[in-house]
């Protein structure tokens, strides 16, 4: 069972959350970027077997978007922070 430590609500089952996918890729700014850059942003994934930075929204709790670090080989969570406070790496 995947338990996500929400900074507001504490440790909660992942079924309370909506998954939002890879959080490590910066979105190109509006009106910038080539077709290839947008293609890579929308369609291409690193899909790592290991640490993955990803978005989860606590839809049945505080409704905040989180950035969570999870090991995709074990589902072990190492970090969860509010998305607006998360620094991009």
């Amino acid at each position, binding site marked *: *069972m*995947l338990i996500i430590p929400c900074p507001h609500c504490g440790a909660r089952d*992942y*079924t309370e959350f*909506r*998954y*939002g*996918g890879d959080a490590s890729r910066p979105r190109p700014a509006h009106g910038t970027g080539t*077709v*290839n850059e947008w*293609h*890579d942003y*929308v*369609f*291409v*994934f*690193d*899909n790592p*077997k290991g640490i*993955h930075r*990803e978005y989860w929204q606590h839809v049945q709790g505080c409704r905040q978007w989180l950035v969570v670090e999870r090991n*995709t*080989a*074990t*589902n072990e969570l190492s970090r969860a922070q509010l998305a607006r406070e998360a620094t991009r790496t």
Partner: protein
Amino acid sequence: MKHRYSAAALARHALTGKPWPRAWRAAPPKTDYDVVIIGGGGHGLATAYYLAANHGIKRVAVLERSYIGSGNVGRNTTIVRSNYMMPGNTEFFEHSMKLWEGLSHELNFNVMLSQRGQCVLAHGPSQFDVLARRGNIMRLNGIEAELLERNEVKALLPYLDYSAESRFPIYGGLLQRRAGTARHDAVAWGYARAADDHGVDIIENCEVIGFERDQDRITGVRTTRGTIGAGRTLISVAGHSSQVAAMAGLRLPVESHLLQAFVTEAIKPLVDHVISFGAELFYLSQSDKGGLVFGGHIDGFNTYTQRGQFHKVQNVAECAVAVMPSISRLRLLRHWAGIQDMTPDGSPFMGRTPLANLWLNGGWCYQGFKATPAAGWCMAHTVAHGEEHPLVRHLALDRFRSGNGYDEYAHGNWTYKQ
């Protein structure tokens, strides 16, 4: 074939008590091959077989990280069908269905194809219209399909819920009688044995750890059992396509997701068709051993764990009871999970990569098993000729760049993006 399986061979072995010979050799890796296939699953083995049988290319190695049958070819729900609607898919999966129909004879191995029929349920008039359209397109392509009204579904599948209390009342269904199931392990073993008989080396416990390259040309693979030269290399690894492609410096439009499957305790023969629920992604059939086999949606976030989350167990059980309340007291015996490549449009990639001599067959989402014979057939042609087989030209790796995403169900395929 050196040791043909037949009734006479069975009687001879029973009388003499001699052990059966190995179905395929434990081949040590040679220094180089014309074609190296990474991944000894159904698709990789089928590709190797058709390379040898259809194209005369016999210096072929299949490299399997674990043992034959350990991956998704032994983890699926064994359903085969060809009720697809989009131009491209319709012909491809019908080619696969036709190959399934002759496969036991072709391989001299009983793959236990059971054409018990598959029925997709509709739970309202609009869904019924969509099924009618799908059935009409199938029939225009020469694939039989029968649109069933509620009373016809009830006559065919009397054990489903037709009561006034039904949460999702059954409105009708689309039946493909030639669809059914096949024994998945036998498919892997049959292709492995037949490929081996043509001289293909099947190398188990041999993990690829890197590529040998000459600028933009792949010339071989580095493995845990040494470096192997390759004229052409095919990635056919289901679930780990991103991992293997990354060794060649490629990033793919793929995320690895987990799909669970379930078997209940065995009951007497009851469900003699494959049934797809229309109100949620859920399907059920009954195995020859008597257990009901269930399948559902992916867990919903990318993972390589091969361990399913409990809420999908609950979801699948709810679907089972919604469509067939009489099984509510059955106990689930086992559930397991496989890792599958999920792609943005739910369709696979078959064909060239940006690197010369490196070919890709991956991204199969939910539909890899039923595609096994045609995927092997078309991939063998593609690798042999250096040009994509006409049946798979819509599955190019760079299709999103040109705006040609190929989405059979028009909603992508990732739960979290729907």
